[in-house]
């Protein structure tokens, strides 16, 4: 006892030390929050789950408009945009305080959207009225609408922001739209029920997943030709359970990840050879994918197991799962 008592700092010293700790804490809270946060839209709970990227714990559950689906962040990571599908609007949240700042007009039933790489405008797919709505994020005004195929959903934009690709689930096309003229330049037939369009970060190809067709079409955006149709086969899984939806490609363009819906797997694909390297078992009905800002991890939303899975990209292994609200749909992570 005496030994440990001797090591204790004297009372004045202890006060000094405490003051130092308090000052450090104050400074820490004054600085902007630097930790990564993961935002997940929960379609059936009408909420957004906020997860701390370091502790991997849920830190907040935010009430949103009804049926939140598409979710994305502004390029600076300060704003979170959500499609509130049943409220026919886009909601904009502060990524630090989780407060809703404003709403944007979206047209009916917005499902998915994509931001121009500069952060403005926002391109929104209206599932119910066969339109892509273009909204100025600064003024909150609708710029125009582009008529597309039936049941538009997937939205991808080229890295230079010049080409927008929308997919229509019933027409089974990828519509290539010029962002200069806001008109369709070409329509490409793909397999049944195309869900997502995702450009390689170098703009060389755009990957379009077909949920019912069970394939991914890789399209050259210059020639509008399909250069490869990727098919999937998993031992012990019936072909009809393989329903490709979410697609993400690493910033070095080398690896693509494709979420396979009720197959509960994410395919890891070499973007040069199109060889499927692995099928990672994640959660039930894996839907959308999002990278961590440092691209070390990939998050998957699992709609039927009500959780997200975390994939370590270097080792291509599933690290763990985190419970969210009911039917998690989309995810985005900000620094």
């Amino acid at each position, binding site marked *: 006892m005496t030994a440990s008592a001797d090591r204790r700092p004297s009372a004045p010293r202890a006060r000094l030390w405490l003051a130092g700790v308090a000052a450090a804490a104050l400074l820490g809270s004054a600085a902007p929050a630097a930790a990564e946060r993961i935002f997940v839209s929960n379609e059936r709970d009408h909420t957004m789950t906020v997860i701390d990227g370091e502790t991997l714990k849920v830190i907040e559950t935010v009430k949103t408009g009804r049926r939140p689906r598409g979710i994305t962040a502004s390029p600076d990571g300060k704003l979170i945009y959500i499609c509130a599908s049943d409220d026919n609007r886009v909601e904009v949240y502060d990524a630090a305080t989780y407060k809703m700042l404003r709403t944007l007009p979206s047209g009916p039933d917005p499902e998915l959207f994509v931001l121009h790489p500069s952060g403005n405008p926002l391109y929104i797919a209206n599932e119910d009225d066969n339109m892509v709505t273009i909204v100025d994020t600064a003024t909150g005004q609708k710029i125009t609408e582009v008529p597309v195929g039936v049941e538009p959903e997937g939205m991808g934009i080229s890295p230079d922001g010049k080409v927008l690709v929308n997919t229509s689930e019933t027409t089974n096309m990828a519509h290539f739209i010029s962002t200069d003229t806001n008109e369709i330049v070409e329509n490409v*037939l793909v*397999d049944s029920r195309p869900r997502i369009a995702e450009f390689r970060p170098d703009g060389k190809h755009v990957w379009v997943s077909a949920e019912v067709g069970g394939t991914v079409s890789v399209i050259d955006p210059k020639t509008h030709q399909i250069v490869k149709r990727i098919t999937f086969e998993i031992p012990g899984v019936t072909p009809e359970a393989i329903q490709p939806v979410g697609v993400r490609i690493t910033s070095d363009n080398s690896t693509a990840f494709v979420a396979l819906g009720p197959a509960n797997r994410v395919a890891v694909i070499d973007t040069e050879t199109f060889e499927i390297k692995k099928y990672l078992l994640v959660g039930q009905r894996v839907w959308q994918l999002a990278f961590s800002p440092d691209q070390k991890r990939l998050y998957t939303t699992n709609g039927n197991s009500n959780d997200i899975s975390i994939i370590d990209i270097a080792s291509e292994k599933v690290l763990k799962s985190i419970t969210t609200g009911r039917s998690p749909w989309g995810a985005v992570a900000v620094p």
Partner: protein
Amino acid sequence: MTITQRARRAATARLAAGALIAAVAAGGAAAQDQTAAGPATLAQAGAGGGPKTPLPAPTPRAEQPGQGRAAQGKPGPDSDWPCIQPKVGALSYGQMWAGPPLDEAIAKWRDDPHVADLVPLLVARRTKRDEAQAAIDRFTAAAGPEKNAQLTLLFAGVFSEINAARSAVITGIERYARKQRALSERIKEASLKLAAERKDMATQMSPEFQKKEEALNWDTRIYDERAQALTYVCESPVILEQLAFERGRDIQAKLDN
């Protein structure tokens, strides 16, 4: 509309029709599902150059996943299936198991007494997740160096049992739907008959008529209550699939890679 405008529109329409034929011919190889392509809209075919492949005329929304396969040679939508959830006949183990192939284990798991003892606890819906995890922990510890093989057998048992229970639930739902359909026919016939008999006040007040009316009211009430219960009944296959997945996840967490 001026003559020039009309001529221009006609020319655009011809252009669109030509492009459409070319597009359908070209698309045939690439696309698995052809959409019924109608004439292109003027908005699309107009404006200098436009897309080579025009938009087809709007068609009704496509079938949702789970129904669409019917168009590809699989059995058609089942008229006995009353649920919003697509009917998935049997689960496949690859949806919840990334370990070694299970075919042999599915045939043999009952022969192992430890596995056969634990499976009923793990497949019971009342067993809480932490209880199940604790039981799997004990099983893993007891298996020693054989744990990968033992855990594979354990999951094979859990999967087979839940899959069998789920199939029974699906058969039950179909039987339930058939009964409901028969009941609805009966209600329809009885109400038509009663309407025809309802000629005057005297008939309506007769004990015989009132008895029939009461029977009809009861049938209608039973039908309505069963229809409401269907929402819960339809969730059962999904709940069982979630249970199989959760147990699979917990068992795989104990496997050595």
